[in-house]
């Protein structure tokens, strides 16, 4: 009987100890997890302060620049780290702008971007690698003209600042694609318009609250 009583006492003591210690243990584990998880910053692209520039060789002479004005999407990053870095960017092809309406019309036509068949171009990152203090190689799928190809973009973190009404962060990506790989062959064979297109994407995004 004494033994049974003693066993009950010890069980109660153990349970009490668990009840007292468990929250502290769980709290400590949660704190540890919070320390290990990256402090990801999620940003929504501000299309007023973001754009995509492209450069192509014209008639074997000058380098011709154009831009896309409508860039949307979001990006996620952990300051200074490649882990967790993600880009999901959409560019509206109809927003192509060279400053000359006639050229814009031609670039929107099926000769080039085919804005009516393919209203958007997208880039979805699949991985990132740190290459410098603020630079990364971001791998992702670029979908353009109905074709998806994996590309690597050299991305630079350009800064983060408080704008008064909220915080914004910026990135700049540079990469080169062969437009013929995406089925955009107009003028390539005749050498009128170059095949290699250099793309610069400047992003500024508001940090989500």
């Amino acid at each position, binding site marked *: 009987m004494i033994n049974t009583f003693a066993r009950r006492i010890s069980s109660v003591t153990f349970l009490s100890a668990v009840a007292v210690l468990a929250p502290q243990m769980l709290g400590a584990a949660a704190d540890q997890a919070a320390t290990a998880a990256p402090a990801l910053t999620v940003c929504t692209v501000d299309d007023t302060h973001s754009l995509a520039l492209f450069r192509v060789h014209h008639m074997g002479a000058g380098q011709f620049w154009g831009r896309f004005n409508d860039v949307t999407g979001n990006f996620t990053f952990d300051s200074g780290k490649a882990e967790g870095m993600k880009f999901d960017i959409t560019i509206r092809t109809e927003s192509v702008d060279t400053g000359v309406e006639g050229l814009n*019309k031609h670039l929107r036509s*099926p000769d080039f971007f085919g804005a*009516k068949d393919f209203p958007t171009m997208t880039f979805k990152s699949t991985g990132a690698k740190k290459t410098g203090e603020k630079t990364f190689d971001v791998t992702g799928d670029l979908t353009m003209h109905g074709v998806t190809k994996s590309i690597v973009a050299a991305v630079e973190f350009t800064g983060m600042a408080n704008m008064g009404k909220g915080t914004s962060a910026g990135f700049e990506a540079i990469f080169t694609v062969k437009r013929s790989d995406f089925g955009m062959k107009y003028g390539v*064979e005749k050498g009128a318009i170059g095949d290699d297109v250099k793309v610069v994407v400047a992003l500024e995004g*508001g940090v989500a609250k």
Partner: protein
Amino acid sequence: MGPELVWNAVLEWPVIVLCTAIGIHWLFRWKRPSSASVDRSVALRPPSRGSRFVPIVAVLLPVAVSEAVQEAITLRELLAQYPTTVSYGALPWAMLAAVAAAIVVGNGSGALSRAASAILVPSVALVFLSPPGLGGGVPQLVALAIAALAAMAACSVSGRPGPAPLLGWWLVFAVASVMVLLSGFAKLAVVLGALSAMAATLAVCAAAIGRPTMGNGLAVTLATALVAGAFLGCGYDESSFPRWTWALLASAPAATALAGVPMLKRHPRLRVTVIVLGPAALAALALAAAMLATASTTSPTDSAVDPYASALRP
């Protein structure tokens, strides 16, 4: 791109042999005089209805070559890439179907035969075409109605010997090419320009030989090609030309029906002028109307919008 691409990859030997054979067949299809008393200079060259295979040279060849050269691919690759992600990419297949249908239907001269080919040939071509914003069946039916009208009118003069009807097609396709170019679609403009150039070439051949006629099969196929070009031009139009101007362009061959007016039968020269310039005038009217309509609807930029405003923090 060098000439070797055109020669080895685009044209390819079987195509060259086939087109040469068709050309010779069309140009030298003479009937032998039945009597020695007949004036041989005329009797050796009676009006020929033209080979039913001429649409291969007149329509399929320029469309396929201009497409293949612009895409820098071979004919085989061009046809193998169907179905394409772009509805415009179906144009070579649409023209192949139209030409095949025209060959099957042939050059029958009866009214029923004409009507059948004027409906059948555009129908099989339009099945392949569904430009952006013009899908769903109704636009295709409208295009078919226009094509049938244009084809019937074109058939009414297709039995006329000499180059006049082909000269009319030369000018119509040239105007169509300009209109498509102004709408922003250079690749399609090149295709229509190639059709124009081929019509001019055949017109020169017809003038040199003197007696061959187009034949209904060719007239219907050319009308189908024009309607297909206008249909795609309308769908991909980046200049916002009014749709009725595209319809007017597609129906331009209908102007040749004026050549059948009894009053003109006593004025052969005026009749030829109508056949050559009537469709071109209607097409030019469509082009002018499109440009005027676009110019009148251009609005100034709204200056009230703050160009530096942030989209996220208004």
